């Protein structure tokens, strides 16, 4: 009898309290857009990959609507020299141009496709940056664990500059690199900040002066089959000087936090009539142990 009452109460509760139904999506009709992945690396061949958006509602299977169904027409213009370049299609998604990205040059891209609005964007390639000084140290936190510290310095120039820093461990056995998490960092004599897998920096604190970046991370090791710690791996740090568009894009992406109570994030784009980013970067790599 008790179970009958319990079932009745639960049923009543479900009927009264939790009424769920499917409703029609009545958002503004949004046209599918071209998504541009175009971060041009200084002195490298200019390559751009394209994908397209897919509607949030309706059919959703793997890969659906993510790729162009026919080739797009891309025109790249070097605004500094006035030259224009036509693209070579490597696949429906990848396009390259017969030129390399030059520092301080401004570039515009124009992408047309019969199924989508014509997308366009402009950027410039930043000058390279040289690492002036660096050192590393290892601090034993306890008998079982240690942390590694890397100090890195470079000279910032007078204009507004943007950077991001990535740290990898290099596995020579499997010939691969692993992105490491930088758990804290500080600039010059400032306070320690919470880190991330990719530090995104603006030169507010060191404009036109020396930047001394100090990062802390957990060392990475080789292990044997029984997970016994062997030698420490070597490392690679990449300092990217990026255009404002790339900085804004990665800054907004870094805020994304998938969770039921997380605030929504509007991802930055500089693509007119499209999404993604068209920007430039100039990278400097340092290997250390």
């Amino acid at each position: 009898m008790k179970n009958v009452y319990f079932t009745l109460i639960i049923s009543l509760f479900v009927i009264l309290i939790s009424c769920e139904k499917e409703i029609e999506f009545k958002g503004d009709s949004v046209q599918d857009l071209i998504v541009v992945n175009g971060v041009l690396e200084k002195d490298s061949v200019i390559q751009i990959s394209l994908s397209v958006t897919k509607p949030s509602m309706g059919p959703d299977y793997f890969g659906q609507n993510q790729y162009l169904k026919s080739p797009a027409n891309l025109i790249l213009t070097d605004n500094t020299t006035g030259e224009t370049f036509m693209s070579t299609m490597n696949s429906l998604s990848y396009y390259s141009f017969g030129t390399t990205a030059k520092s301080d040059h401004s570039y515009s891209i124009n992408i047309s496709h019969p199924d989508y609005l014509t997308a366009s964007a402009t950027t410039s390639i930043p000058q390279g940056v040289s690492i002036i000084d660096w050192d590393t140290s290892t601090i034993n936190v306890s008998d079982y664990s240690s942390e590694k510290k890397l100090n890195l310095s470079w000279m910032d120039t007078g204009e507004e500059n943007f950077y991001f820093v990535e740290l990898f461990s290099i596995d020579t056995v499997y010939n691969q690199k692993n992105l490491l998490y930088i758990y804290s960092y500080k600039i010059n004599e400032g306070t320690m900040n919470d880190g991330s897998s990719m530090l995104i920096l603006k030169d507010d604190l060191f404009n036109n002066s020396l930047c001394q970046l100090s990062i802390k991370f957990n060392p990475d090791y080789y292990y044997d089959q029984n997970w016994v710690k062997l030698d420490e791996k070597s490392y690679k740090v990449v300092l990217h000087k990026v255009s404002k568009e790339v900085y804004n894009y990665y800054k907004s992406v870094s805020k994304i936090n998938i969770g039921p109570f997380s605030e929504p994030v509007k991802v930055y784009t500089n693509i007119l009539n499209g999404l993604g980013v068209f920007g430039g970067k100039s990278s400097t790599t340092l290997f250390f142990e």
Partner: protein
Amino acid sequence: MRPFLFLTILLFQFSSFSQETKTIHGYVSSTKTGEKLISATLYDTLHKQGAITNEYGFFSLTVKNETTVLRISSFGFSTEMIEIKKEETEFNFNLTEIQEIEEFVISSERRSIEKTNIGTMELSMDKVDKLPVLMGEKDVLKILQLMPGVKSGGEGSSGIYVRGGGPDQNLILLDGVPVYNASHLFGFFSVFNSDALSQVTLTKGAFPARYGGRVSSVLDMRMKEGNNQKFNIEGSIGVIASRILIEGPIKKDKSAFIISARRTYIDAIVKPFLPKSNKGGYYFYDLNAKFNYKINNKHHLYLSGYFGQDKAEINQSETFENYQYRHTYTDKTGLNWGNAIAAIRWNYKISSKLFANTTFTYSKYLFKIYNSSEDSEYDNGVLTNSSYSFNYFSGIDDWTGKIDLTFLPNPNHTIKFGLGDIYHTFRPGVNTTSSNTNNETNSLVEGSDSQFAHEAYLYIEDEHKISKNLKINYGIHHSSFFVGDKIYNQLQPRISGNLILTDNSSLKFGYSRTAQFLHLLSNTGIGLPTDLWVPATEKVSPVTADQISLGYNHEIKRQYNFVIEGYYKKMNNLIQYKEGASFFSQNTDWQSKVEKGQGWSYGGEILLEKKKGKFTGWIGYTLSWTERQFDNINSGEKFPYRYDRRHDISVVMTYQLTKTWDFGIVFVYGTGNAVTLASQSFQLVPNENGFNSQNYNNIENVTSINNYRLPAYHRMDIGANRTRKKPYGESVLSLSVYNVYNRQNAYFIYKSFDVFTDKNTLKQVSIFPIIPSISWKFKFNFEQIKENKLNKKKQ
């Protein structure tokens, strides 16, 4: 400080009066209960001069020193005409309550067109009793949500959103003490027990200088004082809660008390159906108490308190045992939150023209989540004990001291001035974890540090009758907030006025600058008690707002009241969680998780009210726009506030069919709340490692924050009350049906993926379909019981 100096000099200038005048002063009280009457009017019929009692029932009227006749009236009481002889000055008037009130009005007898404060509404407590309500629980805040310019947060929410402001921007005062969390049951019911309230006034426009500390509205609620004439017991039994109120004299005409309590029994209803290994449940309670003592005609002392708490807890215990093994596990998880407030108030009639009210108050709000578990394992003679506990708590404590003075130099001026200090202690979210294994303990405390602040203020205002047709309330409020090494000073001018155009119409206007030193950090919008009260700090500035409003008020045959008002409000230094931030990540300081921005709200409100007759009620309509802008949210572009509601309509009607039966009907319609919903998704740009920084393949393309509207909200409630006289007093049986046509209003929506059809759809969750309820209210009349006994004996 110059304006204060000027006003103080002005104040003393008023004191010089001709020897030909006299000041009639005293209190107006109810004959039946002895309680002081607020806003009762006194009118000198000979000299055509009037006065109104203040919030403590005190009046002062300076007239020519000759015999005259005073007319004294108050809503719900019979009007008295009293002859005042020459040289007579001090009086305590008693008015008799009318048994059958034919009028069902928003305001008291004082005509709406005569009031200076634009956007002010006085709520008759009769209304709370007569209208249909959810689950039979009378709720003043839900009635206020039916007024134009006041919006609810959504289905079932008891929070109020006034003219584009957040729920934290309302100064909710219970007997002059601020209440921080005004909701029970996750926002479905307010904490105010309507049985214990005597007056509720909401000011949503330019509020007078005596109020400070919030930028959107003032909700001033006064508790009953307690009947100093006779004992009274009343109560009600409802579907989910019951309540009782006891009041009576301690010493007749001298002192009285009132105690009211309410408790839900959801826990008791659910208990028989819980598995044996589980205990716990959910309940909330309220306790209001007040004691007043009249020391003499000049001094009056009041003590009042409110204690309320919500508690939800689940206890689990399991034991597994065999030959040489025993494992016992216990777990306790719960959350509780509540307010505790206490006030001591001293009324001192310094002279016939000067009245002082000195108050000391304490207000506390605490929210706590806890989990503790114990594990005990006995295996082959070896005993292992371990335990774990987690506590998260946040809260705010206020100690306040203030003095408010009312100076009535002549019938053309009512000057109020005063000062006070609030000492705040903020605890904006602290986690403590502790684990113990075989007597080895590890503890960790993380979160935001407690913050301490002083909020000192002073104000002066004058209700100035410039001419027969023009009355202006002007004043200035200055507050200083001391937090850390920072001092914020805010000078806040206020002005509102009333120009009587004809016998039946008036034009009202107002401007106010307001400042608020507290923020409510919220990202759920559903009234979860996890919302944090945080102070203005060195990094986060106080909120300021400027509002202008203009209104027109027209009365038709003193039966219908028509009000149209327009307003424009600009808010600065609002805070909101940063993009991607979540209140769950409490281990970082809250200041690093917020953005500062600004907001705008503008619109118009219409109220058409029928005040008299068997059929009464009102229609309210609001047309409004509310926007927010933060430099680092939504690419710095403006976006609609979550509660930006273009249209908001409420229709409220009551009909007194007979002396026994009355009926009520409520219809509400509102544009759906604004939420963020992406219409498409896209792939992120990968980084050097082949993945993007967050390793997300697909990301929702949020074109704009709060770009999507929930379906429009509407529902109709109906109710009926049967009131019958009984030998013991009175019995009221209330039947109500909430959401009579079973509208499924959206509580929230979400995107759902169906694995069978590989399709994304939009789902809506509703919580309150049609809900019938019944409640029974009783009232004991001891005089009637005694009379009945005597009659029986005589027979």
